[in-house]
Structures are given as C-alpha cells and as structure tokens.
C-alpha cells in the first residue's frame, strides 16, 4: 500500500517536472527578448529541477542515492539564481535594455 502511494506520488512529481522543463524549453526558444528568455529558463532551473529530483528521490527511498540527489538539488537551488543574476548583470552592463516592446530582436518582431 505504502509502495503504491509512493510510486504514484513520484510519478506525479516526475511528469509535472517533465512538463515544467518542456514549457521552459519552449519559452526559452520562443520568447522575444533576452530577459524574457531568462525568465523562461529560470522556471526549468528551479521548479523543473526540484520536481524531477524529488520524484527520483521518492523512487530511491532512504539510501545514499537519495542523499546525493538532495545534495544535487540543494546545489542547483543555490547556484542557478546566482548564475541568472550574473547573466542579467553582465547583459545590463553590456547595454542590452530590459524593454520587452522596443528592444526585441530583429529576428522576431514585437
């Protein structure tokens, strides 16, 4: 009984994580501007990673693999906002304006 509940819960978490990752990937490809693309990619970096890793962690149970997955999750949750901040700061310093309407790429009009 407990096995079935854990399996179903982990399946739900894994499929939700897959959907989040896919939505973030499509958004990072289709969004018109650098900062909106960054917003779409951040969804996959935090929510998708957390859901997928939690789902796999439920499958692993209380083992060393689960502890390693927790370390990966903690590390990703610390580093991906830091990388996003560094990227936005560098882009802003390079002169890319955070204006979704006018500063859209020429490849895709606003």
């Amino acid at each position, binding site marked *: 009984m407990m096995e079935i509940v854990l399996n179903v819960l982990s*399946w739900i978490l*894994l*499929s939700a*994580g*897959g*959907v989040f*990752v*896919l939505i*973030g*990937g*499509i958004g*990072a*490809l289709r969004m018109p501007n*650098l900062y909106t*693309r*960054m917003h779409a*990619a951040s969804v*996959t*970096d935090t929510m*998708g*990673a957390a859901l*997928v*890793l939690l*789902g*796999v962690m439920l*499958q*692993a149970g209380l*083992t*060393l*693999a689960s502890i*390693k*997955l927790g*370390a*990966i999750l903690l*590390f*990703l949750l610390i*580093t*991906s906002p*830091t*990388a996003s901040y*560094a*990227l936005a*700061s*560098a*882009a802003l*310093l*390079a*002169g*890319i*304006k955070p204006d979704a309407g006018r*500063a859209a*790429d*020429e*490849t895709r009009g606003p």
Partner: protein
Amino acid sequence: MYYAVTIALLVTMALALARALMGPTVYDRVLAVNMFGTKTVLLFSVIAFLSGRPDFLDLALAYALINFIGVLAVLEFFRSRAAKRVAEEGENSPRDGAAER
C-alpha cells in the same frame, strides 16, 4: 515513466541547443548553455535510475559544479570586456542597446 521524463529532457536540450545556435547576442548563448548544463544534470540523475546504476549521480554532482563555475567564468570574461569597452567610449557617447554578436 522514466522514459517520458527522459524524452522531455532531451527535447528541452535540443530546444536549448537551437537557442544557443541562433541566439542573437552572446548572452543568449550563455543562457542556453547554462540551461543545457542544468538539463544534463537532471538527465544524468534520471538515467541513473532508468538503467539502475546509481553511480551516475556522482557524475551529475560533478557536472553541476563544473557547469556553474564555467558559466561564471565565461560571464566574468564578457563582463570585463564590456566594461572595458564602455570605459574606452567615454561618458558622452550613450550606447543604444547595441550588443556584440
């Protein structure tokens, strides 16, 4: 069930590669490569359980560390270059959103 997540991750990695190839500025490429690295970590940890070999988790952990350090190094390189260019142009010539290719 692992297969669905693996396929979703692979499709997302392909989309990130497309953005890295066609990204207009260099920051789009860095963003796409960072996203690709994160998805690689997730793919490793799913494949570790798909194939029943938990050793892959060590690879995922090492790859997460290397990815973060690499992205920060590349960003620091481009940021110092942009700062140098701004300092050379002076204060009286405002830039109008022209980023390097």
